């Protein structure tokens, strides 16, 4: 009899709080987006699953001795997982298009306005009762506008760990929503004529240039913004391994097995921050709203900058490529290509959009460094 009572008291049924049920529904929702809608499934599937595990009553996944606590403490609190992801992404990234047309960096710079404008917006939200974002919170939220998952997680783990779950979910969700968020903005800010512009073919880039490039980026970051060197450094290490041609087995492992392993754990660790008490509040709604604004402003800033450059440039620039400056590699570049093709069936902008696209990765890492240096 006693056993049966003990057993009953150790069921989930006897211990559920309704908030946990809501959070499990959120987790299931993320799984739905990942599986049925193919929204950034590599991250949203483990995040969603982690959210479910985290909210199981009694099981203690995030308490001392719990699996998700180990994962979070070892990999996210230390910043190791996002940095390893960044190394792997560096090993997957080809900077050829950017080196061939370096002006595209300006688009990657402009799109970061999404970040800094959102920072301002997050502070403005404090005017509404119920919101109380510190400058650190606001910075961590604003980085969603960088459209770069690992950067957002890294910064949030340093500046606002309590908001990490909502920030990561927002970042990956909006990255997945790029094909829906960006086209209307792109079309609103350009006319048919501009969208039809074809761009000059890119020049061939030397192996030498590709090898030196990550080192040059690292050196500049060291000189001007050491706070960004963890992110930029690991990214450049990955890229150097890719391009140097003498450590192919390391590069291959960094962009396959290692990044896969880390992705599983990063997702679970992020999911462990989707507990009811940290997610079910007005702040999360604020973060989701601000994230959407950040993406939109970043896209607009990129397109407008491209229009400006188009006017002063002798080589034609299609303003659509500015939208790729938010990063969200390679989705944003593909969206640019698609919108370009709609206007002009012979206009393949993909390679041209890869330049601002990878520039956006650098841009948001630099922006994250600025925030760490000034706010952290």
């Amino acid at each position, binding site marked *: 009899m006693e056993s049966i009572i003990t057993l009953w008291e150790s069921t989930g049924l006897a211990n559920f709080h309704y908030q946990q049920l809501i959070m499990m529904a959120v987790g299931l929702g993320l799984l739905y987006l990942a599986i049925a809608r193919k929204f950034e499934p590599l991250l949203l599937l483990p995040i969603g699953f982690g959210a479910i595990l985290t909210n199981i009553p009694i099981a203690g996944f995030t308490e001392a001795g719990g699996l998700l606590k180990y994962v979070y403490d070892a990999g996210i609190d230390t910043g190791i997982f996002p940095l390893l992801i960044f190394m792997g992404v560096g090993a997957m990234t080809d900077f050829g298009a*950017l080196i061939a047309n370096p002006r595209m960096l300006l688009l990657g710079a402009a799109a970061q306005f999404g970040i*800094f*404008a959102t*920072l301002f917006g997050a502070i403005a939200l404090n005017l509404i009762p119920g919101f109380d974002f510190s400058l650190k919170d*606001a910075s961590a939220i604003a980085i969603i506008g960088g459209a770069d998952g690992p950067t957002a997680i890294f910064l949030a783990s340093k500046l606002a760990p309590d908001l990490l779950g909502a920030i990561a979910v927002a970042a990956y969700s909006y990255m997945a929503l790029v094909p829906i968020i960006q086209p209307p903005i792109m079309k609103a800010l350009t006319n048919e004529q501009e969208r039809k512009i074809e761009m000059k073919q890119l020049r061939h880039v030397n192996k030498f240039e590709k090898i030196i490039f990550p080192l*040059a980026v690292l050196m500049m970051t060291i000189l*001007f913004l050491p706070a960004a060197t963890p992110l930029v450094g690991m990214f450049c290490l990955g890229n150097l391994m890719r391009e140097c041609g003498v450590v192919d087995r390391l590069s291959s492992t960094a962009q396959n097995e290692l990044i896969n392993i880390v992705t599983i754990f990063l997702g679970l660790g992020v999911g462990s921050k989707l507990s009811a008490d940290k997610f079910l509040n007005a702040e999360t709604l604020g973060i989701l709203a601000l994230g959407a604004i950040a993406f939109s402003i970043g896209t607009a800033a990129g397109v407008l900058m491209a229009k400006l450059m188009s006017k002063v440039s002798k080589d034609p620039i299609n303003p659509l490529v500015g939208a790729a400056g938010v990063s969200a590699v390679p989705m944003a570049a593909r969206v640019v290509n698609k919108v370009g093709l709609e206007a002009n069936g012979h206009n393949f902008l993909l390679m041209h959009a890869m330049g601002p696209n990878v520039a956006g990765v*650098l841009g948001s890492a*630099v922006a994250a460094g600025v925030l760490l240096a000034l706010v952290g």
Partner: protein
Amino acid sequence: MENIAETFIEAGTLMVVGMVFVFAFLSLLIVAIHLLAKVGRYFPDPISVEKTPRHLPSSSAMEKPVPAPIVAAITSAISHYRKNKTTK
């Protein structure tokens, strides 16, 4: 409200300083890449052996002879698969 006003000013400063810095940094990187391109001309890519057959007239993806090592890889993959089939 004083406090919020102050934070607003901080946030505004951050916005301006941040955007200026990002633009300055990436502009400098443009300069660096232009320099790199100039230096790069003195270090052309070594002429790759693999590219030669591309210029042969009859080449198509199907007709390219499969490199022996790939055949070996496939052979070993199959035996590897057979070996591993029974593994838990």
